[in-house]
């Protein structure tokens, strides 16, 4: 059951991600991306990491995509067709990607991963403790840094987006 689900999700992810980078209608591309992100959150759910799945859904599906759609709407007509990339460039980029993918997969498949046996699902409580733990292996400092970063980004985004007025 899970296997089938995984394959379905995988197929969705691959198909939509490709569609997302090749669609010529920008709003459709954003929609395909949304599907990809949702499918990835599905995988998080499959590996019993529901907290991250939820985060993925809310932050990406809810926040980022909406942000992107807003910006698209701000700067484009909805029906705008994207410019066609030169075919030469597509081929080169495709070639690099395929070769890169090949070498990565080759590396993955030649490496003998030893699966852990003591499988257990990831609890939200554990993650909370880990994130806020200041003992051994605690992530309180990065956590705080990320908070500050988010704050800074928020302020920065406002400042930048506000920019200078055109008449200045």
């Amino acid at each position: 059951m899970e296997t089938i689900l995984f394959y379905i999700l995988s197929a969705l992810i691959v198909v939509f991600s490709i569609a997302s980078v090749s669609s010529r209608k920008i709003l459709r591309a954003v929609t395909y991306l949304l599907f990809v992100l949702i499918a990835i959150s599905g995988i998080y759910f499959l590996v019993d990491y529901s907290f991250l799945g939820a985060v993925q859904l809310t932050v990406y599906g809810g926040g980022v995509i909406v942000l992107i759609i807003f910006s698209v709407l701000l700067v484009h007509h909805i029906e705008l067709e994207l410019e066609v990339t030169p075919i030469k460039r597509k081929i080169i980029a495709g070639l690099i990607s395929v070769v890169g993918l090949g070498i990565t997969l080759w590396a993955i498949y030649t490496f003998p991963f030893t699966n852990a046996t003591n499988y257990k699902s990831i609890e939200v409580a554990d993650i909370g403790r880990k994130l806020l733990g200041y003992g051994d292996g605690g992530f309180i400092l990065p956590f705080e840094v990320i908070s500050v970063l988010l704050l800074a980004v928020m302020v920065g985004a406002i400042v930048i987006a506000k920019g200078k007025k055109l008449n200045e």
Partner: protein
Amino acid sequence: MDFSYTILIPLIPLALFVILGIFSKKIPASISGWMGSIGLGVTFVLSYYAAYQYYLNGKVNGVYQPFIYKYNWMNFTDKLHIDMGVLIDPISVMMLVVVSTISFMVHLYSRGYMKGDDGYTRFFAYLALFSFSMFGLVLATNLFQIYIFWELVGASSFLLIGYYYTKPSAVSAAKKAFIVTRFADFGFLVGILIIGYYTGTWDFQELNNPEGSVITNWASTSFMGLSVLTWALILIFMGGAGKSAMLPFHIWLPDAMEGPTPVSALIHAATMVVAGVYLVARLFPMYYFIEDGFALQVVAYVGAISSLFAAIIALTQNDIKRVLAFSTMSQIGYMMLALGVSGYHGHDGLGFMASMFHLFTHAMFKGLLFLAAGSVIHAIHSNYLQDMGGLRKYMPITHITFLIAALSISGVPFFAGFFSKDEILTAAYENNILIYISSVFVAGLTAFYMFRLYFGIFWGKDKEYEHTPHESPMSMTIPMMFLAFMSIAGGYIHFSKYISPDHMPFEAHLNYYLAAIASTVGLIGIVLAFIFYKKENNLSERFSHAFGIFYKWTYNKFYFDEIYLFVTKKIIFGLVAKPSAWFDKNVVDASMIGIGNVTESFSYKIKGMQSGKFQDYAMGFISGGVVIAIVVFYLWIN
């Protein structure tokens, strides 16, 4: 005996040159002329004293001993070095007398001739420089010292020919003289280098010793069938031929007449041009003994051909100084051929003695001819025969002295030239009949063209002159009279008592039979000239028409100048120098610039990689990463 005072003979003119040269603006003309004349007067006295002392007392066991005073000037290798010093032997003393006499006379003469000229002091400075160099050359103790002074006389000749440096023809003549002789000196220098390498010495005493290792071992190394030393001697003769205006290096001498006339008398008639003869005479034992005198034969033939060639050209020239120049060349050819046919021992050395004898008498009468010509030019301000005529009435002293000199050079009996020329002809007759015949013919030609000049200047048509010519001042006529005296008296010196190749006196007698032939030929020439030129008539034109093309060739000096011009302008400049300049600009420089341009255009090409598109940069980054990954894995596998 002490001859160390002879060192003063070159040093006095040197001091004069330095003083007059540095203060040429400060010293007034009147003083500088006197300074030069007095200085040269002292050397004149010293030279005659040295000659008196040496010829009277210089013999030990009947052989003239050389006296050498020298010090080391520069060391090349352990063996080779240049010494500076004085060598007193018969020929150098004889040359001292010649040079100091002519130089002194020319100094005196120039005081009158150059009067009022801007560069009066400069002129005397140059003359002093020349005298210094010439004395140094004459007194040289070794080959390299001769070469040094050889170059210096060349340079002072350059300065003196180009004395009227605002005149383009004078400048080009000066350049020509220097470059042609420099080219010949190139041969001289290579000859010196060969001698230095193969014999290990440049010292005349060692080189010329007939029993010495140099002469006995001449065959040690050979090159293209001849001994290297023969090659060296031929190359050295090349230098001598350049300075003495032998064929084919004679082209500078006629042009050198652009210089002031006293200079022509001093340098281009009496002293510097005979340096080539002196050089061969200096190395005479080497020339004679090495390879059985092969190089000496070259000297003889070059001398004979030059003398004939120059005499023919002299027939047709109209510039009186040029006639005299070709005459000089012809007479030097005589001296060369005399050396060339000479032997070494005893009476065989007649040619050598005759050559030196002729050098001496020639210096006197040719110097006189030039001074007299200068006197004429001074009076009427023209060099050309067409502008002259009937001058005997106006310039009696010049007339008489010129006549004496002309008789002397034509070999009329009882004049100096007769005796010396007769010795040369005798020597030629005894050795090489071909050269003898040519020489006799030249003697006739000489008489003819000299009297063509004489009649053309002093007789012929009575010209109307713009302002009446008048006799030159005393300062000019006194030296002329002295030289006229020498042109007669010089012949009565018994040269064979003083000068011979082996430094041993011998007895030379007049060969009356040969002398009669030569004088007759000379007289025929004079009579012919009398018929052609005594009165104004058109005989000469008819003759020149009759000879047609031959006359034209002769008049144009057999087109030697044109050939040289062609070789230098077209071949050396056009085919070598210009292409090499082009090559430098368009190949060497262009390839250096090309390297720069390629770098620049390459950077323009790869500049596109900095497209500003972050995607391109990322693409480069990722593909680089991929490539590195591939390489790493590849290495990892292996």
